[in-house]
């Protein structure tokens, strides 16, 4: 599809920084997006959360930018900004009026090359407090908020880098020193381990020149390769129970599947949609719509760089047992495996994915991030069509096959139950 054939230019600076440029002049705005190939999978047990804490430190100023100025300069320019950390990577992004592109390149290059001179114990202590609060707010104090880390600790073998949460454990966050932060920076934050994407309205020659001036003299460092073996299968079904201050029971199932862009990962995404993506999706229709034994159903495939998993989450209606819900889920999976799949059923999911690709092309931040994602994953930024094609080519038999291949294996089951009433 022409629409998804995104024109771009890609080149690599002498120091190893990948540069991806995509010009679109429909609005006078420009998005800058940088990926560093470092995430929580680069951490060690006992030192979890450093990648994410480090992301926070990147907003604390650098050699030529005082604390708070990073935000202030961008917001003064009418821009928006943020960053995020996942298992595999950390990204930083800004969207500004086109005439402020140089400001962003200055800020991003200053923290890529010259962060450490501005690092202080005071800033670190402050951001450790902020991140601790982030964890408490987003996980510990949320209903069902601890489910995620209980699941991954069991889906993946001990010491597998996906077995701990990206936000980190409270005690680990508290333990980090300035040396930890410095080491992390020196190991991972270098041009050779990063990719810079600019999408939107800009003058190409001037922009290439600016990139060269701002990033060209930063010492290259090296691209870090992590050696992660395919995890061993889950040896036996694992059953977990956790009591919490909640009203409704909830059950989670997790199976190990395969990594991103493995041959089966598009089929698993489509399977998730067939199970829970709409009112007519199998689990939704059966459990929520017809039998009304569940309040909500979610299914998704997570496809990381080193491994993947498939998750089903169902919240029980008051008075209905998780055992009944479990047997319904297992029946539905069995039915996908052995019964018919209507070709229209699969088409419905494919159509949703296809139109989703097109709708997402409205937002420059999304395009820039996606170009970096494809570059990171496939070494080819313009992979929108190829990506869509993976979904288009999935057959009914593929859906059945992946259920048999992955979801009939051992799984982790987690039940979150309301605290026992006292008195």
């Amino acid at each position, binding site marked *: 599809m022409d629409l998804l054939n995104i024109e771009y230019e890609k080149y690599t600076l002498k120091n190893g920084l990948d540069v991806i440029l995509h010009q679109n002049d429909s609005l*006078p705005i420009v998005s800058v997006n940088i990926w560093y190939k470092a995430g929580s999978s680069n951490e060690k047990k006992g030192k979890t959360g450093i990648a994410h804490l480090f992301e926070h430190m990147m907003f604390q100023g650098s050699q030529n930018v005082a604390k708070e100025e990073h935000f202030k300069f961008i917001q003064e320019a009418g821009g928006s900004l943020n960053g995020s950390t996942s298992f595999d990577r950390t990204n930083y992004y800004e969207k500004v009026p086109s005439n402020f592109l140089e400001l962003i390149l200055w800020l991003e290059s200053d923290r890529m090359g010259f962060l450490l001179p501005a690092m202080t114990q005071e800033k670190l202590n402050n951001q450790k407090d902020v991140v601790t609060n982030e964890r408490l707010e987003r996980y510990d104090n949320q209903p069902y908020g601890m489910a995620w880390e209980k699941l991954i600790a069991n889906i993946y073998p001990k010491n597998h880098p996906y077995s701990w949460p990206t936000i980190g454990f409270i005690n680990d966050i508290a333990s980090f020193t300035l040396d930890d932060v410095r080491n992390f920076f020196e190991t991972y934050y270098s041009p050779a381990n990063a990719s810079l994407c600019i999408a939107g309205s800009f003058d190409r020659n001037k922009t290439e020149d600016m990139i060269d001036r701002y990033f060209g003299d930063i010492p290259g460092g090296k691209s870090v390769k992590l050696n992660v073996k395919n995890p061993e299968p889950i040896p036996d079904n694992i059953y977990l129970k956790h009591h919490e201050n909640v009203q409704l029971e909830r059950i989670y199932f997790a199976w190990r599947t395969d990594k991103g862009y493995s041959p089966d990962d598009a089929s698993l995404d489509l399977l998730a949609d067939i199970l829970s993506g709409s009112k007519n999706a199998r689990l939704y229709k059966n459990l929520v719509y017809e039998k009304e034994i569940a*309040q909500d159903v979610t299914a998704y495939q997570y496809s990381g760089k080193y491994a993947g998993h498939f998750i089903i989450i169902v919240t029980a209606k008051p008075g209905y047992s998780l055992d009944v819900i479990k047997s319904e889920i297992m029946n539905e999976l069995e039915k996908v495996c052995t019964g018919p799949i209507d070709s229209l059923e699969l088409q419905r999911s494919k159509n949703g994915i296809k139109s989703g690709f097109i709708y997402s092309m409205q937002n420059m931040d999304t395009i820039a991030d996606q170009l970096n994602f494809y570059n990171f994953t496939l070494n080819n930024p313009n992979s929108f069509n190829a990506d869509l094609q993976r979904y288009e080519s999935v057959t009914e038999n593929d859906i059945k096959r992946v259920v048999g291949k992955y979801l009939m294996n051992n799984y982790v089951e987690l039940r979150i139950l309301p605290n026992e009433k006292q008195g």
Partner: protein
Amino acid sequence: MINRAIKPASSDDVKFRLPQVEKFETKNGLQVYFVKRTQLPILRFNLILDAGSKSDPEGKKGMVNLFAMMLDEGAGEYNALQLNDEFDMLGSNFDISANNDNVFISLRTLKEHAERSLQLFSDVVTKPHFNEKAFAREKRKILTRLLQLKDDPDEIANIIFEKHIFEDNPYSYPVIGFEEDINRISIEDLKTFYRNTLTPNNCKLIIVGDSDKDYILSLLDKYFSDWQYNNSFSYTPPAVKKNPNKIFLVHKEGAVQTEIRIGHISGERNSPDYFSKLILNTILGGQFTSRINLNLREDKGYTYGAFSRFSYYKDASYYFVSTSVNAENTGNAVKEILKELEGIKDGVTSGELEFAKSSSIRKFPSNFETNRHIASNISALVIHSLPDNYFDNYLDNIRMVTIDDVNRSATNSISAEDALIVVVGDKKIIKSQLTDLSKEITELESTIF
């Protein structure tokens, strides 16, 4: 070599042209706002009904929300599942939601499926089934949702805050309603509301995307021809009273964080000081580098984030600060927030003023990036009855704000003394931290609504 010590200046000012809005009417009197955008072959339709949960009848709170949930449970020749499937097969996203002031019916579609999607849209608007079985099911879904809300400290804080800031006003109860009220609502209530309210004269339709006026109009006249005018619906807003300036402490056993809301009633949306209040709040709590967030997060480390906003409903508004802090620092955080509300009355600096104006002015083009952004900007005009040239004058209105305007707004529109305070957390840890605030404390259980 570049000199990194020098912050680069901006290059020439950018040129930005506002999207042009065409206004027209269908044969049955529906007003349409259309923005043509041809970058991508997609379209967005937002139908805005000028009636929301504030018009729920006494004893039937939650009716309009239930109406919104029921409207697409079967329409025309399709039952609910079939209707959903029709939209999904086209790759279209169809959604209905309700808030205090409005019901929103929205559609996002590929251009190639615009006509078919709009036909289905018109079925929902003109031929809904209001099926008994679906009604019972949606009711049960809401009752369970009400239970779930009791777990969520953020939602509890918002609901209790609005309950007390508005007291007897119809904005005081939650859009979702109350358990005993939900049980009292009949399907006839929804049908009556539908007949009297969801009519072309009570709605405005906003369309953004790749099409043209004549074609749109022909489709609307074709598919909405039997949608009838009816003027039996009316709503008169009651006067807004001053809020109590007390503390409400909602106990949540074992909570490690405390949700905090602090604020008071404020002036209406289309008053002339809107822009100076916007600039004021940008300085006080609207951005990352605003005073409140820099103090609570970047200086004290009490929170992951804190912000404030003037929140505007159609007939009332309030100013509020929102944050979530670790339980041990609840009292400290409340005190720092009140200190900021007091401190702003000493006046803002010219640096702060320039920062806030620059930020709001330069951000303007990115408020029109997606079809959704544009539709939502036009929605604001419709909901608050703002003039059609509102966005043409927007930048000038911001440029004209002076430091005296902002300082006057700080004096008139921000008050620590008048502030209502809601905290949701573990009373065993937080109550003693709040006793020296010289505000009366009322304790509530988190299961109260």
